[in-house]
């Protein structure tokens, strides 16, 4: 039986839902033979994420660096995930966990909206997330800043990997959270205008980008207003733009690879199979 699938009467080999632990024992044995480092490197998002409430809604911000240990795996990844038309969630921690957890809860909320015929509430999303994360005792390493507007107003929540939550007027998470919080604590005010809030978030993320090694590249902003509109500004600020610097660098002629440079043992060209054009013809019945 192929891993990750089950037989049942209607659908042969349907992939199983949920986590599949069939490799767990094998992996324990394999990892025991490891020398110094039994820990596996999964892509983390290092990260600085912030969220704040303002007079007309919430503003979320995030950096865009994803790291594999100390190597930068992705320079411009998206850390602000869609949850519902009126809710977005910033994710820090293990990239695969934040992606899949937010996607799962997003889809559960969509089904719930179909069932209840009502827009989703933040408390619902928070409860779904915390129940799942607590169930996995922190092994699903997703630290989230959830923000949005519902019938009760604008809200920001922070959710920790072990399942604890807090409702706050402003918050930061991730390896750059201290740098960001320093900015937030010194400049945050109640009832800010949209411009003030966006400036504050950009400065907070900037503090993370420049001072925290796990965060970097650009700043994404997402503004969710109480009237229901969403302004998702991907790469709102690009303080590390490489293009102008690179344009100044003279690319050495040695880096242009002339044909025939690399010694070859064998070369083969296989044309693609030709697919018959036109598709199916109708069956003819005599």
């Amino acid at each position, binding site marked *: 039986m192929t891993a990750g699938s089950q037989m049942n009467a209607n659908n042969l080999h349907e992939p199983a839902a949920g986590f599949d632990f069939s490799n767990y024992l094998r*992996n324990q044995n394999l990892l025991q033979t490891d020398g110094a480092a039994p820990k596996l490197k999964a892509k983390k998002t290092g990260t600085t994420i912030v969220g704040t409430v303002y007079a007309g809604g919430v503003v979320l911000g995030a950096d865009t660096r994803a790291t594999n240990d100390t190597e930068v795996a992705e320079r411009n990844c998206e850390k602000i995930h869609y949850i519902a038309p009126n809710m977005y969630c910033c994710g820090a921690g293990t990239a*695969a966990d934040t992606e899949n957890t937010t996607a799962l809860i997003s889809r559960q909320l969509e089904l719930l909206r179909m069932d209840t015929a009502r827009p989703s509430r933040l408390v619902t999303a928070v409860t779904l997330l915390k129940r799942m994360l607590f169930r996995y005792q922190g092994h699903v390493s997703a630290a989230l800043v959830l923000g949005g507007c519902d019938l009760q107003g604008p809200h920001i929540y922070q959710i920790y990997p072990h399942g604890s939550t807090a409702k706050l007027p402003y918050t930061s998470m991730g390896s750059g959270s201290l740098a960001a919080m320093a900015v937030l604590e010194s400049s945050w005010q109640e009832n800010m205008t949209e411009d003030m809030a966006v400036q504050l978030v950009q400065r907070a993320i900037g503090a993370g980008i420049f001072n925290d090694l796990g965060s970097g590249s650009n700043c994404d902003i997402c503004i969710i207003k109480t009237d229901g509109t969403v302004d998702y500004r991907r790469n709102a600020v690009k303080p590390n733009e490489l293009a102008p610097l690179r344009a100044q660098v003279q690319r050495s002629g040695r880096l242009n690879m002339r*044909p025939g*440079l690399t010694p070859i043992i064998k*070369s083969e060209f296989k044309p693609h199979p030709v697919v018959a054009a036109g598709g199916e013809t109708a069956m003819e019945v005599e």
Partner: protein
Amino acid sequence: MSVMTYNGAAIIAMAGKDCVGIAADRRLGVQLTTIATDFPKIFQMQPKLFVGLAGLGTDVQTLKNLLEFRMNLYKLKEERDMSPKVLSHMLGKILYSKRFGPYFVEPIVAGLDESNKPFLSTMDLIGATSEEKDFVVSGTCTGNMFGMCESLYKPNMEAEELFETLAQALLSSVDRDAVSGWGGIVHIITKEGVLTKELKGRQD
């Protein structure tokens, strides 16, 4: 030795002008002993869709079979070819389903989509996917490969130049890594067909 460096691997994929290239080394080792110099790590799933699998050799082979199986099921149900984006997402989900007992593989998906535009994506061993427009690397010497690609890569290269660039990037990277190398294989996929070349590399 870490489980990800046990067998050794180096895979690079790059996008060119209406073409993609994917290259891999050929070594299979058991820690520092080389036991094969023709171990396939790149697999052609469809005429214009390639998957490169770097990591523990047994999981490379298992995952290749599992992917083929799921792809064949898809083709039977949907009566159409799988696009690179769909394969990439499906692979990400398969890897995440094994979040707490993962396959020790870091895959690369490279292909041309329906409009013959290049598609590149890579993921970590638990399925966190990233799509890139220029190049993606995976294996035991990613530091070397990133360095070579950042230096040699130019956008919009034609197939010939893309081949040379990919080949030089791969060969130079693996020469500074003890557990990868022993030759190389490069596939350049264009809308006409696939050009495959075996590289003459250092055998040490």
